[in-house]
């Protein structure tokens, strides 16, 4: 095997730094100031690279964390899945309709328990003034109710920690005056 590897003894890096375009710094007889400047540029580059690598690590960790959060939530709801599976396994079409319903009710109660634990709250809709922060209007209907009142809820909405998870899908009153007009 060849023993003639390119072998060098460690040496200071200063000479290998490329000056920025346009700023031709003489490499011979450089004063202590430019040596210092070179060292600073190198330090900044190292810091910048370290920051880039840090960002990469953080984003990798964030996606790992996201994965863990999803896993944790799945663990929370797996008992519900188990519950339904047991319910269907034990269900006999001819006899157990009532038992199935009461089983389903328990599973649902379990579900509500999880939601409460996670601070999920249902959005009040019917009879409330329409608020796009919480409600999404699917329909606008003439009615005797005050204008801009939610008169029907098609599907419920939920909030968590002050943020709307999903708005309620609602119908909103156009108010009585319009109702009269429409009636004509």
């Amino acid at each position, binding site marked *: 095997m060849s023993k003639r*590897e390119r072998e060098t003894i*460690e040496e200071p890096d200063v000479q*290998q730094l490329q000056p920025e375009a346009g700023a031709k710094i003489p490499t011979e007889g450089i004063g202590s100031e430019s040596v210092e400047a070179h060292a600073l540029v190198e330090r900044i580059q190292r810091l910048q690279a370290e920051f880039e690598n840090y960002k990469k690590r953080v984003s990798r960790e964030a996606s790992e964390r996201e994965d863990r959060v999803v896993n944790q939530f799945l663990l929370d709801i797996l008992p519900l899945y188990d519950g339904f599976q047991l319910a269907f396994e034990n269900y006999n079409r001819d006899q157990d309709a009532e038992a199935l319903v009461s089983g389903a009710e328990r599973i649902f109660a379990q579900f509500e328990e999880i939601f409460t634990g996670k601070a999920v709250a249902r959005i009040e809709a019917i009879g409330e003034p*329409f608020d796009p922060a919480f409600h999404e209007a699917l329909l606008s209907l003439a009615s005797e109710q005050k204008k801009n009142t939610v008169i029907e809820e098609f599907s419920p909405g939920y909030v968590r920690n002050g943020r709307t998870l999903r708005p309620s*899908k609602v119908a909103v009153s156009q108010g009585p005056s319009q109702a009269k007009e429409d009636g004509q």
Partner: protein
Amino acid sequence: MKEKIIGIDLGTTNSCVAVLEGGKPEIINNAEGERVTPSVVAFTADGERLVGRLARRQAITNPTNTIASIKRKMGTDHRIEISTDGKAETYTPEQISAMILQKMKEDAEAHLGGKINKAVITVPAYFNDSQRQATKDAGKIAGLEVMRIINEPTAASLAYGLDKEHEQTILVYDLGGGTFDVSVLEIGDGVFDVLSTDGDTQLGGDDFDQRIIDWLADEFRKDSGIDLTNDPSAMQRLKDAAESAKKELSSRMETTINLPYVTADASGPKHLEKKLSRAKFEGMIDDLLQRTIQTVDAALREAKKTSDDIDQVVLVGGSTRIPKVQELISSRAPGKINREINPDEVVAGGAAIQAGVLAGEVDEIVLLDVTPLTLSIETLGSVATPLIERNTTVPTEKTKTFTTAEDSQPAVEIHVVQGERKMAADNKSLGKFQLTGIPPAPRGIPQIDVTFNIDADGILHVTAKDKATSKTASITIQDSSHLDDGEIERMRQEAEEHAEEDKKRSELAEVRNQADQLVYAAEKALSDLGEKVDGAKRSEIEDQIRRLREKLDANADAAELRLGIEELSKTSQEVAQQAYQQAQGAEGGSAPEADTAPSDEGEDDGEYIDAEYDEK
């Protein structure tokens, strides 16, 4: 710190804002926590102004005072009449657009924690002077100095850094929520030249959703006789389900649309359950997709280019996630398809890059290189042990501590390799050197720090240092990061193709190392314990050692080696235990150590790996 300039993609259906942070565009979340903001403005009865998601949610209750798609009216004399509580007011398209821009500005300010006064805004390539001027004016009304108006396809190309490459022809295919644009560009010396544009202002992802909705309603009517189209609640559920089915079919071959209790009749509740395959969905939208391809052809003709002239294809807009879209485009324009950046955000990202250039930020920050491939050294069993992972930004430095594989090993060889394969021989060899003069010591005892230091120019300095003697040796490798793209791609692909087989080989190497270590430890134990081991046990162990050695020499597979390891480690444990008991029973003195494990005080990762010593 220089003043930040934001980049805004002011879209027909959605808008998006980004800023350059540390040389890379970052999308800014809006106040609602979303990355894109619907381009919708509303004036409510109580005089409140809503922009974005909230404006969209209330649109149906307030149709006359909710404005969507104002972009279509830019640069025209169109006026928007708003009457709230009897008060009538007239707005220009610029004023309405300004309200969207103002929200983007405020959200950016909240995110960045400071005033934002300047922006780069994108417009479609086909916008004429008055439309561009109107966009600029909208910015001014919003309190933004518009530093530059740039074309959306140009911004998308910037986001992919295509301006930095050689002169080339680019096709930008932009299929958004409600509009479709094709542009053919030529880039050279950082100058973007729009050769042609074409499109369809009324075609987009919403049309694909509608096809699924129609199909679902139709199927449901066939199955149950009930018409869902008059039921707003059911239709809303169909719409949501159609959109998520469409998205799912971009990654799966089939999805199930399941809407329990979608409606009810005299016979009871009705459920909707339909399987939709990707092929079926593609069939549904085929005519729409063919139309986009005809538009591509028309744009190419107008640019006087053929599909062979296209070097790069850039995909913009959420609907380009549909695999069929990508397939059709690559059949028509076989250039390299760029789709790594989120197609909903790529235009805003490009605008932020342009903004960064104007702010002088890009000049200021020298863009740093990354290592295209992993840099490793070869360790015992020819395994490539990584020091610097691929995609690490340079300059950077990493140190790991290694040790010897043989007793009294006088030198270690440091073999530097580059690539993603697990075995050193499969990677590219960059250089080798030896660190000699290691004082005689049992294997596993010497500590040799190996440091990889890559400077900003991509030059790799590898240094090995024996901690005991402080003796060092090093090598400088000039071209560790300047491989050509083809070579990098080839090496990555090879690594992927061989992943399975490489894993097996590196596992085998690991088991071999383990076997080798165990043989060494067992022999050492026998000699240390001397007469404390009775004759029968001694010959049993010696026998097992010999067998395991033979297996190693005969290149036995991992399973067989594991069997040998298991039997030998069991017997050696018995022996060690016996010796301890004897020692305690006899004199209560200290027992000799049966197995000296290498101390575990690595500096960097606390990791010890035997550096291979080539004995030839």
